[in-house]
């Protein structure tokens, strides 16, 4: 056995049965060993597609996603995806080849300082310099990636280490004296949290991506206490979107009810979220009436980072939510609910019916037709926000998008990872025409493995979100956002890859087209020609607060008056 075979054996020991990757010079020994390994390899067409797919695989399955790449350009193509996984706290392990140790530092062919470059975009990284370290380092990489606050870990293996003979044991002990994540929240802090909630007149529960594995406990706590629930963009699905206590997501494009509830709340219980600026707006004006913020997070560095916390609870969301559920009592907040319901009834997410096709109705139609039973991915932009608003996610791990980094192009590779993580389930990628073109080469991966993903391009011929900001804040000067003059015919593009392609522009045919897409057994791409100047509302302008919320499209009001 050589180092390369040892890497795969060590991955097998970690329960890995699928690797996304792309071969190249310095990782060839490991690809050679793959030939004899039971691990399935998914060949992507660009390393970025591989790392995104591994990320979605991790998020959809709850396991660790694995991606493999060669040195230099291969490894550097992982950078965006690693940062994406870091910001959305996803357990990914990346294995990269590197030039032989004798050549490190000599500007060798396809050499790059991968450990140096990936240091700020990973939770941790390793370079294995001794073949004997392989089993321990792989075990440590998985342990670090999957425990505490999950994150990406990169393991760089010079080619000579992959080729060196290996004869050691795989029963290894991890040795990380500086890494001891706190799992159990402090009982006294949990008691204090429950006491504060019992006294609250206007409480809300905010749930983030850190609670995706704690859904059952969160629901139990919420139902026992009767508290209004606001999942963040990353928390959608952790609490059912069709639940009576669900208020919608908060933040820049959140619901009126969610934002006003936070604005007026006296007590906020936040579980597994980090008060991103897209959630808080201007921090100094965030939740001005909340005298008590209870912040539950597994990462102590998140507590007090942006928002002052009265009751910090460092611990795992599942563990803490279960403890909170044990002690939860029905809150007497009928008046508060009356107020919240009024906001909810008065300002639901909606759209004005128009003669042309709109993104919102396409997403709504897919939600209705699937009964919400689907894993949904998206790119980044307007279509992402529309999906978050109009697809009601009832199950955890069913909504996979790029929240923290906002990485355009993740939709298709995310769909690939989700389809491989949960075969047999419907996977829909709501994508933008701009986002989709950033990683469309992965259509080949869809075709190669015949993954039955439904790619729905909400094609408005613009970089829609940038255009919306230009509309609102730059006097409608549409600088470099027009795509329609040079977009491909997406249906034909799909057909060129051997994937069924459809185009929809007539809204009268929406229902039947949705049915056709969902009933087709293999992959389908549906190009929806939606209105080119639709805006996402409500909207809190960047750096604003709930009071600055623009509830309806001001452009529509103007146009109606014309």
């Amino acid at each position, binding site marked *: 056995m050589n180092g390369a075979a040892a890497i795969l054996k060590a991955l097998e020991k970690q329960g890995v049965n699928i690797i996304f990757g792309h071969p190249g010079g310095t990782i060839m020994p490991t690809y050679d060993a793959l030939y004899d390994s039971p691990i399935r390899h998914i060949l992507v067409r660009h390393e970025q597609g591989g790392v995104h797919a591994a990320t979605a695989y991790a998020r959809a399955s709850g396991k660790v996603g694995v991606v493999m790449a060669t040195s230099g350009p291969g490894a550097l193509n992982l950078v965006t995806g690693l940062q994406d996984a870091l910001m959305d706290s996803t357990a990914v392990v990346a294995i990269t080849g590197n030039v032989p140790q004798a050549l490190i530092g000599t500007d060798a062919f396809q050499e790059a300082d991968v450990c140096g470059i990936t*240091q700020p975009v990973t939770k941790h990284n390793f370079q294995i310099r001794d073949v004997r370290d392989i089993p321990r380092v792989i075990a440590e990489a998985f342990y670090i990636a999957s425990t505490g606050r999950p994150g990406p870990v990169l393991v760089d293996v010079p080619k000579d280490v992959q080729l060196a003979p290996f004869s050691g044991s795989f029963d290894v002990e991890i040795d990380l004296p*500086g890494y001891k994540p706190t799992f159990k929240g402090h009982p006294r802090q949990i008691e204090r949290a429950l006491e504060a909630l019992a006294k609250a007149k206007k409480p809300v529960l905010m749930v983030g991506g850190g609670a995706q594995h704690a859904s059952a406990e969160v629901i139990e706590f919420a139902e026992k206490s009767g508290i209004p629930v606001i999942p963040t963009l990353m928390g959608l699905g952790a609490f059912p979107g069709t639940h009576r206590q669900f208020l919608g997501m908060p933040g820049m494009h959140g619901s009126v009810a969610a934002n006003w509830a936070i604005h007026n709340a006296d007590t906020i219980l936040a579980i597994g979220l980090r008060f991103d600026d897209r959630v808080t707006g201007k921090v100094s004006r965030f939740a001005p009436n909340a005298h008590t913020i209870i912040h539950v997070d597994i990462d102590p560095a998140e507590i007090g980072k942006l928002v002052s916390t009265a009751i910090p609870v460092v611990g795992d969301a599942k563990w803490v939510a279960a403890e909170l559920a044990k002690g939860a009592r029905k809150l007497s907040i009928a008046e508060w609910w009356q107020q919240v319901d009024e906001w909810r009834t008065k300002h639901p997410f909606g759209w004005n019916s128009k003669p042309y096709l709109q993104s919102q109705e396409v997403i709504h139609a897919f939600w209705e037709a699937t009964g919400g039973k689907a894993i949904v991915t998206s790119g980044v932009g307007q279509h992402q926000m529309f999906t978050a608003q109009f697809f009601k996610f009832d199950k955890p791990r069913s909504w996979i998008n790029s929240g923290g980094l906002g990485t355009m192009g993740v939709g298709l590779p995310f769909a690939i990872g989700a389809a491989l993580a949960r075969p047999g389930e419907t996977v829909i990628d709501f994508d933008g025409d701009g986002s989709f073109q950033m990683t469309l080469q992965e259509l080949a991966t869809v075709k190669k493995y015949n993954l039955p993903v439904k790619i729905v391009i909400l094609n408005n011929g613009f970089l829609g979100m940038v255009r919306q900001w230009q509309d609102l804040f730059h006097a409608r000067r549409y600088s470099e956002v027009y795509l329609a003059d040079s977009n491909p015919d997406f249906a034909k593009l799909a057909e060129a890859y051997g994937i069924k392609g459809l185009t929809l522009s007539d809204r009268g045919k929406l229902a039947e087209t949705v049915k056709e897409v969902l009933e087709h057994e293999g992959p389908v791409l549906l190009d929806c020609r939606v209105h080119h100047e639709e805006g996402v509302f409500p909207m809190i302008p960047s750096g604003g607060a709930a009071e600055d919320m623009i509830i309806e499209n001001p452009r529509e009001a103007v146009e109606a008056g014309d």
Partner: protein
Amino acid sequence: MRHVVSVLVQDKPGVLQRIAGLIARRGFNIESLAVGRTHQEGLSRISLVVTGDDRVLEQVEKQLNRLIEVIKVTDHSEPHVERELALVKVAVPGMEERLEIKDIAEAFRARIVDVARKSIIFELTGDSSKVHNFIEAMRPYGLLEVMRTGAVALSRGEQVLKVREKKPAV
């Protein structure tokens, strides 16, 4: 406010880069950084001098703690000993100045470690303000080169930075 922070780390390749990168990335203001091996194999100790309010300091500590190779972080707000070493090369224009310079150096208990016709190198230890004051006192004569190590610190008494006993995580 100025804080001296000690960090016990595993002596692994790239650990200093990780710490320096983190400080830069998070926008913390750092006055000095000193690093050296400890008496225990595989462990190094870093002293950081950081300026900022309590919130900044709390974030520095928490972010440092997130690094896998960081074992322990402490802010020396309690009684502690702080020292810095400096080598200061001062220009000596003539005999008269030479005597003055030597007088000043004696007042600071600085040692002469090199004497040349037109320069003297002094070695000085003390807390950072003493080093600063010495340098300023020598400035009128002409500073040729200054090298400071940055502050290093230990808590007074029995309190020590050490590896915690192993306990099962998760």
